[in-house]
C-alpha cells in the first residue's frame, strides 16, 4: 500500500469489535397530519422499522443482514451511517458511542471512517458531476489532501483500484453501465480511507455476471485494506459467498445471528430454515423442505408476540402473546420460543416438512 492516507490509521488493532449495536430501535412517525388527527380523532401511529436489534462486527470481518423486503435491513444501514438517529439504543464505533460525538472534529472523523454503498447505481452518482469530482468528494470535504497534484494522484490511484483508467475520470456517470457505476461508488466510498463500509444491497440491481465481479472486487479490497463490511442483501447465495457473520431480520427484529457457517449449516429459527430451504440447489433435489408460506404482514400492524407466528408451523399460544427473548443455541443467538423450549426436534421438523409438501 503506497497509500498517502494510510498512516492515519492506528497501527495496533484494538481488541473490541469495530461496530457494536446495542438494543437499537427506530420508530418512524407515520401519523396522519395534525388537522386530520384532531378532526377525525385518529391517534398518532409509529412504524417500528427496527426493533431492539443488537449485534457486533469484529475488525476486518463481514457481517451480513438478510431478510425479506421491508424487514428493516436498509433502515439499519442508514442508522449505522448516521442518516437516521436511533429512537432507542446506541451504536458504538471503535469503542465510542456515536450519539456522544458532539464536536465537529469527532463527527468529521467518524464520517470519514464510515461509508456507504447504495443499491441503485443510477441514483447514487450525481449526473452533473465528472467522475473524478465524485471520487474526490470525501477527500475535499474532509480536506485530507490539498487541491492539485496530490489530489489528482489519489483519484488516479482510486480509479486504478476499482479497475478504471485515469482517463475515465473525465467522463460523466451516464457514460458508464450499472456495474461500472457501482465500482465508481466503491471508489468514492474508499476515497476517505474508511475502515467500515455499509453496503446496502450493492449487487441486487446488477446482472449476475457483474454481481460476481463486484463481490470479488469487494473481497479483494477487504483483504488489501483491512475493511470491515456490513453487507445487506436478500440474496442468500451472495451472502454465503461473502459473509463471516450473519444476521436474519424479520419485521424489524433480528431473529437469528451468529457466524455464517453455523447458520448455513444448522439454522435454528424456523424462519431461517424456511429461507435456506428456499435456495434452489442441484444436489438437494428430492430432499424434504419446509416451503416459504404466507406473506410478510404489514409492518404498520405487526402480529403480537413473535412477529413470525402466523407463518410458523411450530407456533403455539405462547408465540402468539409473548415476544421471544434472545437464547443461545448451538453457537447462534435466536429469538424463538420453540428453540428455547427445545421443541424443534428432528422428528418434529421432518413431520412439518412432510405436512407442507
Amino acid at each position, binding site marked *: 500500500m*503506497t497509500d498517502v492516507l494510510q498512516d492515519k490509521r492506528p497501527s495496533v488493532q484494538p481488541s473490541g469489535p469495530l461496530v457494536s449495536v446495542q438494543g437499537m430501535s427506530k420508530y418512524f412517525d407515520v401519523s396522519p397530519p395534525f388537522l386530520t388527527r384532531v378532526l377525525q380523532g385518529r391517534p398518532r401511529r409509529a412504524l417500528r422499522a427496527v426493533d431492539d436489534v443488537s449485534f457486533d462486527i469484529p475488525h476486518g470481518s463481514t457481517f451480513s443482514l438478510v431478510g425479506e423486503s421491508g424487514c428493516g435491513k436498509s433502515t439499519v444501514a442508514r442508522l449505522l451511517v*448516521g442518516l437516521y438517529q436511533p429512537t432507542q439504543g446506541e451504536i458504538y464505533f471503535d469503542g465510542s458511542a456515536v450519539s456522544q460525538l458532539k464536536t465537529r472534529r469527532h463527527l468529521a472523523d467518524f464520517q470519514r471512517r464510515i461509508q456507504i454503498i*447504495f443499491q441503485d447505481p443510477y441514483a447514487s452518482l450525481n449526473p452533473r458531476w465528472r467522475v473524478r469530482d465524485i471520487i474526490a468528494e470525501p477527500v475535499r470535504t474532509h480536506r485530507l489532501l490539498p487541491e492539485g497534484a496530490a489530489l489528482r494522484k489519489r483519484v488516479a490511484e482510486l480509479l486504478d483500484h476499482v479497475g478504471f483508467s485515469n482517463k475515465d475520470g473525465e467522463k460523466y456517470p451516464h457514460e458508464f453501465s450499472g456495474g461500472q457505476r457501482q465500482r465508481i461508488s466503491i471508489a468514492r466510498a474508499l476515497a476517505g480511507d474508511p475502515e467500515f463500509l455499509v453496503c446496502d444491497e450493492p449487487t441486487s440491481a446488477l446482472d449476475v455476471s457483474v454481481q460476481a*465481479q463486484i463481490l*470479488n*472486487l469487494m473481497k*479483494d479490497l477487504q483483504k488489501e485494506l483491512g475493511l470491515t463490511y456490513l453487507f445487506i442483501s436478500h440474496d442468500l447465495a451472495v451472502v454465503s459467498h461473502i459473509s463471516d457473520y450473519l444476521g436474519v431480520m424479520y419485521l424489524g427484529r433480528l431473529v437469528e445471528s451468529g457466524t455464517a457457517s453455523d447458520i448455513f449449516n444448522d439454522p435454528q429459527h424456523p424462519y431461517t430454515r424456511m429461507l435456506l430451504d428456499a435456495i434452489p440447489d442441484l444436489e438437494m433435489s428430492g430432499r424434504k423442505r419446509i416451503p416459504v408460506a404466507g406473506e410478510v404482514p404489514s409492518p404498520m400492524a405487526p402480529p403480537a408476540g413473535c412477529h413470525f407466528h402466523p407463518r410458523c408451523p411450530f407456533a403455539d399460544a405462547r408465540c402468539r402473546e409473548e415476544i421471544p427473548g434472545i437464547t443461545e443455541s448451538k453457537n447462534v443467538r435466536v429469538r424463538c420460543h420453540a428453540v428455547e423450549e427445545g421443541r424443534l426436534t428432528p422428528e418434529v421438523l421432518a413431520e412439518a416438512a412432510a405436512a407442507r409438501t
Partner: protein
Amino acid sequence: MGASQSNSQQGPLNSRQGQAGASEEAPHGRLHRIFDSDIWHSFSHSPITVLSAIITLLFFLAAIFAPLIAPYTPFQAGSLHLMDGFTPPFEQGMSGNFYVFGTDDQGRDVFSAIIYGARISLLVGFCAVLFAMVLGVTLGLIAGYRGGWVDTVIMRIADVQLSFPAILVALLIFGLAKAMIPRDYQENMAIYVLIISIGLSDWVQYARTVRGTTMVEKNREYVQAARVIGVRPAVILFRHVLPNVMGSVLVIATIGLALAIIAEATLSFLGVGVPPTTPSLGTLIRIGNDFLFSGEWWITIFPGIALIMLALSVNLLGDWLRDALNPKLR
C-alpha cells in the same frame, strides 16, 4: 497500490472501456458536440424558433450597441429640432433630417427612441428576472430541503402572493418604495425600485418549481451519499441539488423575461415606471397614446409593435426550450 490481483481480474474490462472512450472522444471538439446535440437538432428544425431567436438577438444587439446604431440621440434636448415635431414616418422633417418611423411632438426620432427604449426594457427585464430567480431558487431550495415548518411558512407566503395578480403586487411594492424614498432621489432610484418590485412579484414560480424538484432530489442516493460523507447542507444544496434543478429554472427564466418586459411596460404605461427622461418601450407607448386620436398614430404604434415582437419572440424561445428540455414531449 498492490492491486495486481484486482487489475488482472479486470484487465479485459479496462481495455473495453478504453476503446469506447476513444471512439467517443475521437476528433470531435466541443463545438462539434453542440451542433451534434438533440437540442441543436430540435432548434434548427423549427423555423419559428430560429426566427424568434434572430429577432431576440437583433433586439439584444440593438440594445447593447444603441449609441452606435441609433441615427439620433433622442434624449439630448440640445440635438432636437423642435420644428421637426410630428413628422410622419418615411418623411423628411423641416430641418432636412430623414425619420424612418417619424417623430413625436418634440421632434424626437421614434426609431432611435425605440432602440434606447428597448435598452431600458431589456435591462429592467433582465435584472428583474435575475433578482426573482436568485430569490426564488434560494427560498425553493431551503423550503424543499428543510421541509417542516420552514417549508410551510415559505410556501404559504408564496400561495398568498400568488392569489394576487403579479402586476398588482408590483404596483403595491412600487408605491410603497416611492413613499419611503425622498423625492430628490426618486428619479434616480426609479429603475432599481422597478427591478425589485417586478422581481418580488415573480419569485413564487421559481420557488415552487425548485421546491418540488429539490424534494425529489434530496431523497436520491447521491445526496444521501454526500450526507454520509459529511458535506454541509449548504454545500449539498448549491453543488449537488442546484445543478440538477437549473434546467427547469432556465425555462421559467426565459418565459419570465417576456413577462417581466411586459410587466415593466405595463407599469411604465400606467405612469409609475421609469421616468419620461429615460423612457422604456412602455413609456413611449404612453406618451404616444396622448396623440393617437389626433392622428399621429406612429408615435405609439411603432413602440407597440416593437414591444410585441420582443415579448413574443422571447416567449416563443422559452416555449421551445421547455419542450426541448422535456424528454416526455420529444
